[in-house]
């Protein structure tokens, strides 16, 4: 049951394995490493573009544009992708907006991994009352519609990057906890766990030295898929005006601004949408292919 909690985590594709059985082994291995390398390279490229791009190239500022230069078409001098209604450079806004999205997604997933992973591992390892209490609390968070919670938290704390991270962490934590718990429950029955316990290893050491390395692959692949989900939800929050506050760029609020003049200048929506799609797709593919690779050992 725990598998179905997070939509994408259930989609295993055994067909890939099957396909490789028939293909020559070398071709299979080559393909498989390509399956990780290509999306991995895409992710690296996107990260580099967003974080190094504005440093290396002389880009116009993403905010405080000249209103006289609004709605410039693509390939205008000095504005490769044109400008938005406020005269801000779209390319620059895309890259700075990407910084915000990627940073938020990373922070939310690290928070989820550390807090949720620890809670889930503790819950699975200790069992009993601790397990019941932790899981019931997480059940409440899961039954709570996540977008409503993030909306309320975003409203409560006011729109800002830090508050968006906290708001989104509210639902990444139970998701990671679920994954960690089910992984630990499986590992708990393994002989090496019994061996560690017989040696008198303290619980914290078992958790960090024995369980953490063994659950890491699963949690990291889940985190990759989580990156995509968080980027989409962060976009939704910013779209509704509750994420990154307006003059600062974010893919979500760019889509929202573009929506106002959708019929006249559709490209204002297309660029940030494309950025969202390519980034999320890269993270999803990386996650799925890493999973296929690690589970198909």
């Amino acid at each position: 049951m725990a598998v179905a909690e997070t939509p994408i985590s259930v989609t295993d594709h055994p067909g890939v394995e099957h396909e490789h059985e028939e293909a020559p082994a070398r071709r299979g291995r080559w393909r498989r490493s390509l399956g990780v390398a290509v999306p991995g390279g895409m992710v690296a490229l996107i990260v580099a573009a967003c974080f190094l791009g504005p440093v290396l190239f002389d880009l116009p500022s993403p905010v405080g544009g000249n209103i006289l230069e609004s709605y410039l078409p693509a390939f205008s001098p000095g504005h490769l992708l044109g400008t938005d209604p406020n005269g801000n450079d779209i390319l620059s806004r895309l890259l700075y907006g990407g910084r915000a999205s990627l940073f938020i997604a990373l922070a939310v997933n690290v928070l989820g991994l550390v807090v949720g992973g620890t809670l889930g591992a503790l819950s699975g390892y200790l069992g009993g009352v601790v397990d019941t209490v932790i899981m019931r609390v997480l059940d409440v968070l899961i039954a709570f519609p996540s977008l409503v919670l993030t909306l309320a938290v975003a409203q409560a704390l006011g729109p800002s990057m830090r508050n968006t991270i906290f708001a989104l962490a509210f639902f990444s934590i139970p998701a990671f906890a679920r994954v960690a718990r089910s992984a630990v429950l499986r590992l708990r029955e393994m002989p090496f766990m019994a061996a560690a316990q017989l040696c008198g290893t303290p619980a914290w050491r078992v958790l960090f030295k024995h369980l953490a390395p063994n659950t890491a692959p699963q949690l990291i692949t889940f985190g990759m898929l989580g990156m995509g989900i968080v980027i989409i939800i962060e976009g939704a929050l910013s779209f509704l005006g509750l994420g990154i506050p307006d003059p600062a760029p974010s893919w979500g609020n760019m889509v929202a601004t573009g929506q106002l003049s959708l019929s006249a200048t559709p490209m204002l929506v297309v660029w940030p949408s494309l950025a969202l799609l390519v980034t999320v797709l890269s993270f999803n593919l990386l996650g799925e292919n890493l999973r296929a690779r690690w589970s198909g050992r």
Partner: protein
Amino acid sequence: MTTAALPQVPGTRDPRVSRTSRVTRFAGSPVLRLVVKRLLMAIPIMLGVTVLTFWVLSLIPGNAAQQLLGPEATPEQVAQLEEQLGLNRPGYVRYGEWLRGAVTGDLGRSIVSNQPVSDLLGERLPVTGELVLLAFVVSLVLAVPVALLAAHRPGGVWDRISMVVSTAGLSVANYVLALILVLVFAVQLGVLPAIGFTPLSEGLWPNVRSLILPSAAIGLPLFCFYARFLRGDLVDQMQQEEYVTTARAKGVGSWQVLIRHAFRNSSFGLITVVGLNLGALIGGTVIIEQIFALPGIGQMLLQAINTRDFIMVQAVVVVFALVAVVANLVVDLLYAVLDPRIRYGSR
């Protein structure tokens, strides 16, 4: 997941089970016990959800009194209205009062419009309900045939095409998809309305027509997800299960095995996922209703949060959580109805 754990041909019954089942069927049937147990488990979850909402909402700076009077109101005026609306009392008192009403089915009155919450919900729930229903129809009608086609020959052309399409589809945010659909079908082609909702009273077709784009925006990513899930499960069944081997050995055709045998078992997994999704899905309607200006419950939620109408927010959250809890319960019951092994209490 919930696929056949016992290598058993459907239709045969384990003799160890049937004897006890005859006794238990009437007295304490496992299905009845399951329902009661799940309902009891739902109570602390619902309590937790409502407490959490009250607490989170109490953190939001400003209250409905300030919002109603606007920024130019004097502190005395605000204090007076707070007094009138009962907002100056401590949170736990207001929660207790709200809970007492809610348990008896009285969800209170909107702080802002003073209309009974149940009336407002009654106006708006059908819109969201119809939207979600249509989205499910769109996604399932597409997903089942695509998954069957893909699973019929794993690694084949249709399988690859469907995997590529569904991977891409899963990476599209529904609000982006919504805008693309509006751009193509409303702006460029002009065949469907971009925004607005036509009630059912003005005819079935105008009603459905106004919901086609919103339900497609929700349903298409779901379709990708269900198609992938069902395809994976079908392939597992076809490769690992002994009843498939049996059926094949009897000379049943490959489509027959896939549809009549494997799909019947895989449908359990699909039902679970659909049920678990329902909670997330109804939360996801918030943004779609906002884009398409649909007068549904999600739009109401957003308005209520903006005007600090906490009684309304509370009501919407209760509805969302109830839907999630009930959907899970229905899934478990459907199992019991569909799967004889559970029906006769031998899990």
